[in-house]
């Protein structure tokens, strides 16, 4: 009995010690004004994920050559472990000086107070506006977009010709008519390979919504239940109800094989698919397909992804860290990085380099990037996106009512909040 009483007393003590401190009226964090002149010095630790982590040291040799007194150590982290490693490091205040940061993590890390605001001497106008948007959390920018990717419509030129289409369509109706013609005249089983819901399907749905003038949020409020959004989702749904797209693909199906064998001669995806389909298609396949901009409703919009680079508040060597970030944003370094990694430059002037401009497919990506949009950098976005994906799945697979589904997403999103 006595023990229980003691335990309860301790628990009561612990609980009374809890509770959030009252929100101090926090002023927007001020950007550390400028980056000092002169070369970078001291030691820097950098974290980067995946192939980028393995490739980055090759690029940084040039930085070390230009700044002889700096020593940069790159730690490569696998993507699967990266998020945990970052949050643990932030909690323990053992962050690197700077790191590659997934665009969807910005809201969370900035919310944890881990990131240093971008100095004003970094020019935001040098970057694609959509990509720059991924660095901004509550109006303050934390870091730079390092490399980008966006989504285009891939299509088989040979089969399109068979279907009687020689100039790619530019609007919604045209896209659907083309997919239908692929089915009717070019012998394709499915006109276009669209993802019927499931993880990440919002990346294919939202470009249509954005092109129709819909927005995901208005300030701190989610806006899923707007007429513009509804119209776009209904358009997306019609591909499945009209039998143009497969509503029951096999689990974990990839787009390449059916694109190459012509059974699904169109799909929407990012730049990495160029090498993927050419690998499956073999020699000469590069001439059998092309890419076109997302069809226009009010505008032509797409999704912009990629990764950012940010400096951590705990860094003891912030000046050198920002110098490295600034260096990474130089157009010629961005081109060099493209050649090393095939990651697309986030700095628009880098696209004038012949290495990128001479490739017509690549140039189409460059054009689309001008208008590509990123989702809001809320810490809760991935959670909301998962709910959106689940409703898209109902809409495409079971023909569920679009407006009812969007209302569900809206109420779920509002109850999840924006995490701020």
């Amino acid at each position: 009995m006595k023990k229980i009483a003691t335990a309860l007393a301790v628990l009561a003590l612990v609980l009374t010690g809890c509770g959030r401190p009252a929100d101090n009226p926090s002023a927007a964090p001020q950007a550390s004004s400028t980056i000092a002149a002169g070369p970078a010095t001291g030691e820097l630790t950098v974290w980067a994920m995946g192939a980028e982590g393995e490739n980055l040291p090759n690029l940084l040799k040039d930085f070390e050559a230009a700044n002889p007194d700096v020593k940069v150590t790159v730690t490569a982290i696998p993507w699967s472990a990266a998020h945990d490693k970052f949050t643990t490091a932030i909690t323990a205040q053992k962050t690197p000086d700077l790191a590659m940061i997934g665009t969807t993590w910005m809201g969370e890390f900035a919310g944890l107070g881990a990131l240093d605001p971008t100095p004003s001497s970094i020019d935001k106008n040098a970057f694609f506006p959509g990509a720059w948007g991924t660095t901004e959390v509550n109006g303050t920018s934390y870091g730079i977009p390092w490399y980008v990717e966006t989504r285009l419509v891939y299509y088989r030129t040979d089969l399109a010709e068979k279907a009687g289409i020689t100039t790619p369509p530019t609007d919604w109706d045209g896209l659907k008519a083309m997919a239908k013609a692929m089915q009717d005249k070019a012998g394709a089983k499915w006109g276009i390979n669209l993802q019927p819901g499931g993880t990440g399907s919002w990346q294919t749905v939202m470009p249509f919504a954005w092109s129709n003038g819909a927005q995901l949020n208005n300030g701190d409020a989610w806006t899923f239940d707007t007429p513009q959004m509804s119209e776009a989702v209904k358009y997306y749904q019609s591909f499945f109800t009209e039998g143009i797209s497969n509503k029951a693909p096999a689990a974990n199906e990839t787009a390449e094989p059916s694109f190459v064998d012509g059974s699904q001669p169109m799909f929407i995806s990012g730049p990495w698919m160029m090498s993927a389909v050419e690998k499956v298609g073999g020699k000469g396949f590069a001439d059998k397909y092309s890419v076109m901009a997302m069809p226009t409703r009010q505008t032509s919009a797409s999704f912009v992804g990629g990764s950012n680079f940010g400096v951590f508040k705990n860094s003891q060597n912030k000046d050198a860290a920002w110098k490295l970030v600034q260096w990474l944003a130089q157009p010629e370094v961005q081109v060099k990085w493209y050649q090393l990694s095939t990651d697309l430059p986030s700095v628009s002037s880098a696209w004038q380099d012949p290495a990128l401009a001479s490739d017509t497919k690549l140039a189409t990506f460059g054009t689309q990037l001008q208008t590509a949009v990123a989702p809001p950098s809320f810490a809760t976005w991935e959670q909301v996106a998962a709910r959106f994906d689940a409703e898209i799945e109902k809409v495409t697979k079971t023909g569920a009512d679009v407006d009812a589904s969007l209302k569900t997403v809206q109420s779920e999103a509002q109850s999840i909040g924006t995490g701020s």
Partner: protein
Amino acid sequence: MSTPTLAAPVGQRPTLSPEVRARSGRGHPGEGRAAWILAIPFTVLFAAFTVWPVVQSLFMSFTDTRQRDLRTPFSVNFIGVDNYVRALTDPVFVKAAANTAYFVLVGVPLTLAVALLAAVALDKGITRLRSVYRLGFYTPVITSIVAVAVVWRFILQPESGLLNTVLGWFGVQGPNWLGDPAWSMPSLIMMAVWRNFGTGMIIFLAGLQSVPYSLQEAAAIDGANGWQRFWNITFPLLRPTLLFVSVTTAVGYLQFFEEPFVMTSGGPLNSTISLSMYTYNQFGYGNYGLAAAMSYLIFVVIAVVTALQFRLLRENT
């Protein structure tokens, strides 16, 4: 220190010398201290790595802890059972609970039946190459789920998969196993049974071999046929083994996670999302309070199911 004088027993018992008394009883405080000192390493480790996480997660489940609170784990609001209410009213959580129940109620009996069948076959029927079969049946248990998942995805391909090709030979049009919400869970159950019956089989085999041959012989002399001998002698004697296998299998299945995680990501239409996987997702979103509450709900279900099994399968009373 003063040793309390024991009232001398009347005659029979010899009085113990003080040293012996101290060693055998609760005498010497110095020794108590030594015992505590010796126990400290374990106590500290146990407290830090076992008790504390349990206390903290339980505490977390009653608060609105989110990922951003990690640095200041105590400056969170105590919100009572709100997380539990939220979990139980979340339609996806309810769906996950129903999926888990489906998986357990169909999967556990099926796994036990297949395991017992294989064990009996290995014990009685198959005499040649017995160890080869035993190894073969057990191999899925020790194979990495990731590798297995890749192979099973090929097998379950709707158009070119092995399973539907074989069904096609008999004129059966196989379904889109993992892509159809009605068939995705049966597919995962099938895979889970295949993957897990080996463990049960090994344990049943040990149980079968401990059934005394003399009992079988006596029953045979009395004219019992093979089935009667199995049902009236072998099966009752296997009860403790059955209890053990069913409890461990059920506990494992109640937490099933890997199959949907690698095969279907919970889809299509949430038809294969499990309680553990949904909880894992919530942790991933940083909703630590809610996820902790979900974990404790799963814990309660496991405890109740296990208690029920003990009740149903305990020795005849």
